[in-house]
């Protein structure tokens, strides 16, 4: 069965670490980083990249539109 692998790219400098995307992700892929960005926010990153299905739920709730989503089909 074809498997879907996804990945998100976060514009870490613009992320404000509101963590709305964390709750929106159905697979629990995202988490806030321990490091901070230039503005002092803990930006979001992929904690568990293997689990991402590229559903774009995180991206469509992101208030700052910093998430881009990519998806590929793996045989």
């Amino acid at each position: 069965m074809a498997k879907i692998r996804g990945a998100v790219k976060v514009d870490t400098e613009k992320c404000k670490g509101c963590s709305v995307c964390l709750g929106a992700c159905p697979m629990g892929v995202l988490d806030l980083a321990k490091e901070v960005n230039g503005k002092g926010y803990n930006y979001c990153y992929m904690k568990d990249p293997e689990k991402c299905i590229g559903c774009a739920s995180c991206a469509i709730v992101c208030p700052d539109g910093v998430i881009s989503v990519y998806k590929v089909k793996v045989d």
Partner: protein
Amino acid sequence: MAELTINDIIKEENLVYKKTKVMTDNVMHYCPGCGHGTTHRLVAEVIEELGIQDKTIGVTPVGCSVLMYNYLDIDMQEAAHGRAPAIATAIKRVMPDKFVFTYQGDGDLAAIGTAETIHSCNRGENITIIFVNNGIYGMTGGQMAPTTLSGMKAVTCPRGRDVNTMGYPLHITELIAQLPNVRFVTRQSVHTPANVRKAKAAIRRAFENQKDGKGGLSFVEIVSNCNSNWKMTAVDANKWMEENTFKEYPLGDIKIDWEIQEGKISLRNRKLDY
């Protein structure tokens, strides 16, 4: 098969979703988790999908979203506090082929601009009003708005809103829905992916209502949060909104194509409802 790395997936041809080009690259000044950002993006996405970027004129309010013209790459006009529907009326009457929308908060639309709102809706101007309701004056530091929930604390009602002296939360959306010239009235929210998709469909419909020549005003209320002035984190504010605000302001379409949806408007009775 060889292990697939993230860099193999992040390629232009695999792109599923990215920020629309109608939005500029400026960093938004909103607090982390504010619904304004999502609503801005939905408006921008709808404009891109309908291909009306060069034909859209937005009118910005006074309030948190006053700097909206920095974030959307379309023609925009700033209005005096609360007067956005009046400005939009003029723009639409002078240029009927343009898509005109106003974007207002609850202090702008439901308090200072009540007269402009009610009368432009009563005239049935063929414009779209996006109304972001977070139940508080956000920009000025969390004062009580007409839409503040009963018992909810704000800077100017530190013991909670007392309905006997301060009145009940103003349901301006239901008020407007009862005007005969208003075509489409809906209430949505943008805090979960499902709600965002519904809100986008509503905003799209509100813009499409401007091009079929039937006229009528379209009104989209977005129930939003104000985590800074509610003194909560973004996630807690969204949860609080689900538990409290949605009880006062239930989501759903209230009026579609001049037809009030069944059970959406009922006479509110002080003794029964509170």
